[in-house]
C-alpha cells in the first residue's frame, strides 16, 4: 500500500503531537500529515484516459501489488443526454491501471439508490460495452452478502450499519464519483458516493434510513466505516444546478484524486467554486482537524486556480459559493 508517512509528514505529525500534548489535548485541532491531492487535466472521454489514469496513480505512488481493489463508481439513473453517472471509460482506465500496478484483483461494485436492477442500469450507461466481461468483474452491492459494522465515529442516529462484504473486504476501496452539485447537501463527491455502498437489499430503494438518520451525518459515518480508501473524482464532465440527477452537464476537464477522501472532496469543491468549509458533511468528517483547509492539502499537478470553474448552484445553496468566485 501507500507509504505510511514521508519524512516531512512524520515531522509535521510529530510537531502536532507535541502541540497537542502541551495543550492538554482537549477539543484541540489535531494536526494531520498533509493530505496529497492531485488535479490532472483530462478534457475528453477518449483513449488518452488510460495514460492519464496511470499518471494519476503514479503521482500517489500507490503500492497495490498483491492487493484486492474495489472500484466504486456512481451509477444513479441513465439519461443519454445527461452526465449523471461516472463515465465507464474512466472506470475501465482505472481498472487497467490498477491491474498494471500488480493488483491481485480489481472489481467494480455499485449499489444504486433508486433503481433495483443494477446490471440493466450499467448496461444502459455503457459499462457492458466499455468493460470487457463486465459481469465477471462486477458486484451489485445492493445484493451482496453483508456484515454488521459499528462506525468508529458516530455522527448520525445509526448506531450500526450493515455493509457489503465486497466493499468491506477490499484492501483498497476506490470511490469514483461524478463531480456534481447536490440539491440536499450542496455537492456530491467521493464521500457521498459511499451511499452506494449501503445495501438496498437491507435498507431499500432509496436508502431512506440514511435520510431519517441525517444525510450529512450518515455521509460522515460511512466515511469512517471504510478505513482503506482512495478517491478518483470524474470531473471531466460534471453536473451543475439541480444535481445529482436533473442538473446540467458541466465540463470541468479534470480528474481529482487522493488517499484522503475528505481532502479530495474539499479540493473538488474549490474547483467547483464551492466553499468546503460551508459543506456540512465535510466539516463533520473533518471534525475540526483542519484537513479541509487549503494549506493542509498538498496539491500536485495542476493548481486549483488554473482549473477552477464555477458550478451553478440552486438558490438554496447560493450561500455555499466560495468568496470571491463569480
Amino acid at each position, binding site marked *: 500500500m501507500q507509504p505510511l508517512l514521508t519524512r516531512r509528514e512524520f515531522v509535521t505529525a510529530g510537531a502536532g503531537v507535541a502541540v497537542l500534548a502541551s495543550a492538554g489535548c482537549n477539543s484541540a485541532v489535531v494536526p494531520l500529515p498533509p493530505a496529497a491531492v492531485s488535479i490532472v487535466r483530462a478534457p475528453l472521454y477518449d483513449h488518452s484516459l488510460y495514460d492519464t489514469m496511470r499518471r494519476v496513480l503514479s503521482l500517489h505512488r500507490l503500492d497495490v501489488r498483491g492487493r484486492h481493489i474495489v472500484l466504486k463508481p456512481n451509477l444513479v439513473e441513465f439519461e443519454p443526454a445527461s452526465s449523471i453517472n461516472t463515465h465507464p471509460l474512466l472506470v475501465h482506465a482505472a481498472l487497467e491501471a490498477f491491474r498494471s500496478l500488480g493488483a491481485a484483483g480489481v472489481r467494480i461494485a455499485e449499489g444504486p439508490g*433508486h*433503481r*433495483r*436492477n443494477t*446490471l*440493466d442500469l450499467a448496461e444502459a450507461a455503457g459499462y457492458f460495452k466499455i468493460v470487457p466481461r463486465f*459481469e465477471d468483474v462486477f458486484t*451489485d452491492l445492493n*445484493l*451482496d*452478502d*453483508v456484515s*454488521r459494522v459499528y462506525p468508529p465515529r458516530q455522527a448520525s442516529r445509526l448506531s450500526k450499519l*450493515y455493509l457489503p462484504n465486497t466493499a468491506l473486504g477490499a484492501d483498497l476501496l476506490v470511490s469514483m464519483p461524478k463531480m456534481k452539485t447536490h*440539491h440536499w447537501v450542496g455537492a456530491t463527491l467521493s464521500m457521498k458516493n459511499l451511499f452506494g455502498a449501503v445495501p438496498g*437489499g*437491507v*435498507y*431499500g*430503494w*432509496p436508502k*431512506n*434510513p440514511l*435520510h*431519517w438518520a441525517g444525510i450529512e451525518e450518515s455521509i460522515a459515518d460511512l466515511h469512517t466505516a471504510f478505513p482503506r480508501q482512495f478517491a478518483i473524482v470524474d470531473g471531466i464532465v460534471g453536473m451543475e444546478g*439541480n444535481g445529482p*440527477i*436533473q442538473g446540467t452537464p458541466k465540463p470541468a476537464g479534470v480528474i481529482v484524486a487522493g488517499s484522503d477522501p475528505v481532502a479530495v472532496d474539499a479540493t473538488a469543491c474549490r474547483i467547483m467554486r464551492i466553499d468546503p468549509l460551508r459543506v456540512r458533511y465535510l466539516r463533520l468528517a473533518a471534525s475540526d482537524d483542519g484537513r479541509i483547509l487549503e494549506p493542509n492539502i498538498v496539491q500536485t499537478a495542476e493548481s486549483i486556480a488554473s482549473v477552477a470553474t464555477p458550478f451553478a448552484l*440552486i438558490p438554496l445553496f447560493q450561500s455555499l459559493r466560495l468568496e470571491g468566485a463569480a
Partner: protein
Amino acid sequence: MAIGNLVVQAGPVGASPAGSPLMAIGNLLDRQNPDGGWPYVRGGSWVEPTVYSVLALLSAGEIGPARCGLAWIRSVRRSDGGWAPRADIDESTWVTALVALLPPEHLGEAFHQSAIAWLLDTQGRETTTLYRIREWLLGNPDTPDRHFPGWPWVPGTAAWVGPTCLAILALAKHHQRRPSAAARGRIEKGQTFLLRHMCAGGGWNHGGVNALGYASRPYPETTGMALAALRGATSPKIDLSLAVAREFLRQCRSADASNWLRLGLRAHGQLPVEYCPPPGLSCRTVPETSLHLALAAADRGRGIFGV
C-alpha cells in the same frame, strides 16, 4: 430432472441463467444453498430470492426443493412476527410482505398470520399518530399524504412505492381467502397512496415524483408493480399509467421490467395476447429467473400473487 407440469412454451429466459423454463428450473436448483434458501446472485440466503424461488418451484411442481426453502423461511422468523432480509439482520422489514405472499397451506397458517399481523401493524412514519402530533406541535400544516398510509422499506422511515405494492399484493391475496375490514382498509388506503405518488405523466418510480419542482420519470418495473397492486381499482390515473406500461413493455429489454409489466398489465386485462418477451432477455438474478418461471405458469392460468 422432473419439471412437474411446466410446459416449455414461454419465451427465452435469457442468456445468463437459462434459455428455457427447464433450464431456469435447473439454474434455480443449482443456486439453492445447503440451508434451503437462495442468494440474489451468489452467497448467503436472503428472504426475497427465497420467496420468489419457492413460488416459482411450487408453480413448476418442484415440491421438494420448495419445501426446503419454506423450512428456511420458517426458521428465520423473528420474535416480533416479521422477517428480516437475512437471518443475521436484527430488524423485521419489507420482506415480511413477500413471506405473506406464500401460500399458507405451504408456509403454515400460523406463520402466514404472523406476517399479515406484522403488515397490518406497519406503516410509513409520516402517517403515524406520533409523527402527525409532532408536526402539529411544530406548526407544520397537515397534508393529505399523512392520511393514506403506505409501507416503508424499514420501519420508522417513510413509505415508498415498492414495499407498498408488495404489502397490498399480500393483503389482497389474504383478503380473498379470509376477508377482513382491517385488510380491506389498508389495501384501499395503500392504493390511494400509490395513486398520489404516480408520476405526472403516468407510471411510477421509487416514489419521489418531484425533486425541487422537477417532475421525475417513471420506471418500468415499479410501474408494473403498482399496476399489479391496483388491481380492481378504477381511476383515470390508472388508464394513463396503463398506456405508459404498454409503451414500456414495447421497448422492454429487461427481464425484471418485463416480469412486472406483464403482471401489472395482466391485472387490468391489458397484457397484449401476442406478447412474448424479446429474444436475448437476460435473467440476471434469482428473483428475475423465479418471476419469469412463475409467470410462465400464470400464462396457463395458475395465479401468482392472486394476479
